[in-house]
């Protein structure tokens, strides 16, 4: 048996996917990246060995911001190419607009005929990313998933600071004013959605089937809000958080050839 392994070391989570020859997922691993990408890469290798991966028959492609820290990778491919490729596989279409909300980056990727055609990334700023959501959730003493659930019941609050640090102070002053958690959570999600929508405005999403990948794809409320704001249907599925790793594993299959 041949193993096509994709390892996506993101800023927050490391995702690993093993595909067999017929491109079926045989293993999924998810773990925090922690402070050392190299150590995480080592831990992934051990875990895969335990799962019975035969390294003599394995091809490995690394992606994500920690891609250069996987010493046993045969190749590094950027997460933009991998997310595009992975999303095509997951959503069964070669023409997609991929919204990937990751830990430190939000990416919008246009794929035509299975090839990345154009992409936009956020500037060096965490507004509109998973990190923004995480920090705000911490401030509200809830998990990011809980924050999204709370947001569904809230309304009427908007967070105007684009800078995460200032937005946190803004949230703290809202707490101080006695604003409900639900309303603040609404403001947080609203801020992310607006930021993503502004970025998306630079691409013609109307021409594509739109899908959501990355760590926030599991949050139905966020997806709904995106649909509403962008005025297009947005697809998501549980495996979409592995899109980068799946794309990398598909690239590994190509490396072997």
């Amino acid at each position: 048996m041949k193993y096509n392994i994709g390892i996506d070391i993101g800023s927050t989570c490391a995702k690993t996917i093993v595909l067999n020859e017929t491109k079926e997922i045989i293993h999924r691993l998810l773990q925090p990246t922690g402070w050392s990408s190299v150590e995480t890469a080592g831990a992934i290798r051990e875990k895969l060995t335990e799962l019975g991966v035969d390294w003599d028959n394995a091809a490995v492609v690394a992606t994500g911001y920690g891609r250069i820290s996987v010493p046993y990778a045969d190749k590094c491919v950027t997460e933009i190419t991998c997310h595009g490729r992975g999303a095509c596989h997951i959503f069964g279409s070669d023409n997609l607009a991929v919204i990937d909300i990751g830990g430190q980056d939000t990416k919008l990727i246009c794929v035509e005929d299975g090839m990345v055609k154009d992409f936009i990334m956020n500037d060096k700023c965490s507004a509109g990313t998973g990190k923004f959501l995480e920090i705000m959730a911490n401030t509200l003493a809830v998990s990011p998933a809980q924050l999204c659930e709370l947001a569904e019941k809230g309304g009427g609050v908007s967070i105007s600071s684009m800078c995460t640090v200032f937005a946190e102070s803004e949230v703290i002053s809202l707490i101080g004013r006695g604003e409900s958690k639900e309303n603040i959570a609404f403001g947080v999600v609203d801020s992310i959605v607006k930021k993503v929508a502004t970025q998306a405005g630079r691409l013609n999403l109307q021409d594509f089937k739109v899908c959501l990948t990355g760590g926030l794809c599991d949050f139905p409320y966020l997806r709904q809000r995106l649909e509403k704001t962008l005025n297009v249907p947005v697809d998501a599925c549980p495996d979409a958080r592995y899109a980068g790793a799946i794309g990398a594993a598909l690239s590994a299959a190509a490396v072997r050839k």
Partner: protein
Amino acid sequence: MSQIKLPEDFVTYPEARKKAFMALKALKESGRRVVGTYCTYTPQELVDAADATPVSLCAIGEENIPPAEKVLPKNLCPLIKASFGGAVSDRCPFYYFSDMVLAETTCDGKKKMYEYLGKMKHTHVMQLPPGRTGEGALAFWKLEMEALRRDLENFYGITITDEKLRQAIKLRNRERKAILNYYEVGTLKPSPISGYELNTIITSNEYAFDIEKKIAFLEKRTAELIEKYHAECEGKPSRPRILISGCPTHGVIDKVIKRIEELGADVVGFENCCGPREKKDPVDETKDPITALAEKYLRVNCSVMSPNPGRLEALGEQIDDYKVDGVIEVVLMACHTYAIESSAVKEYVTKEKGIPFLSITTDYSTTDQGQIDTRLGAFIELLG
């Protein structure tokens, strides 16, 4: 990751600057006049005709930012901050040795910065018209040329003759031709030279104060490269070919230009003021020199001009001539005019020319190297 192969006698930009510093010191001690300049709009011929040496002042270097931010706002283009910071901190030896500075009201940031710079040393600021097609723009710019002539004459107590100007125009036109021919080595496919080396040699040569020697050096190097192409490169496969557009890239040459080539593509041309932009367009040698200079220096395709259709024309021409696979535009943080033009450039490159386009916004720091690498890497991957 591939390493760029550089010739054994390759002189890096910092090395060239260091050498230039000593050369300028010697020049100055011999009694030579020195005028500090910043921009492609500067009519160097007028400086030459005053028997002075124009020298490019520092506009790069992260270390020049903190001294500038004591006076200038943080949210300002790094090139403006580094220009000011290099001058006020005496880190820029060329500023130190300049008798006076010659600058232009190119963008809002620069012209306001020059107000502060002018307090330290005589600074002649030429008023540039906001657009080249405006009624009276050329007549106004011609008056500015005459004003500069008078100021140089008064400052040095000399007379600038038309004869001197004509000589200077002829010499600089020859220099332009030599630089252009050298840049056009990049039209060869596959390219016999890395864009990093190509650009470094040009920028380093801004400090070659003997123009005749500079022309001879460039002609020799161009001939060597063409020979190398026929001997080693012709008929071989090419990596994706990138054209750089946008803001000046001196300050991000390691962070962007070098990285593109390390990540697997060739930078073959520059459609910015670090490239052949103005070299293609000589000064008319048959006209009255001041008129000819005014006409030439109003034709520079910078985004400070409104409208600026010349940039798209030049870009299209370069995309074809240099057999370009993708355009990467570099916008320096807070450079409004290039940032705004970016949408039109993207539209033109992707729709009219049908090739991929990437715009990156960055500054002189290295804090965003990871994000820049991901963008550049993904762009090169999509070029296949």
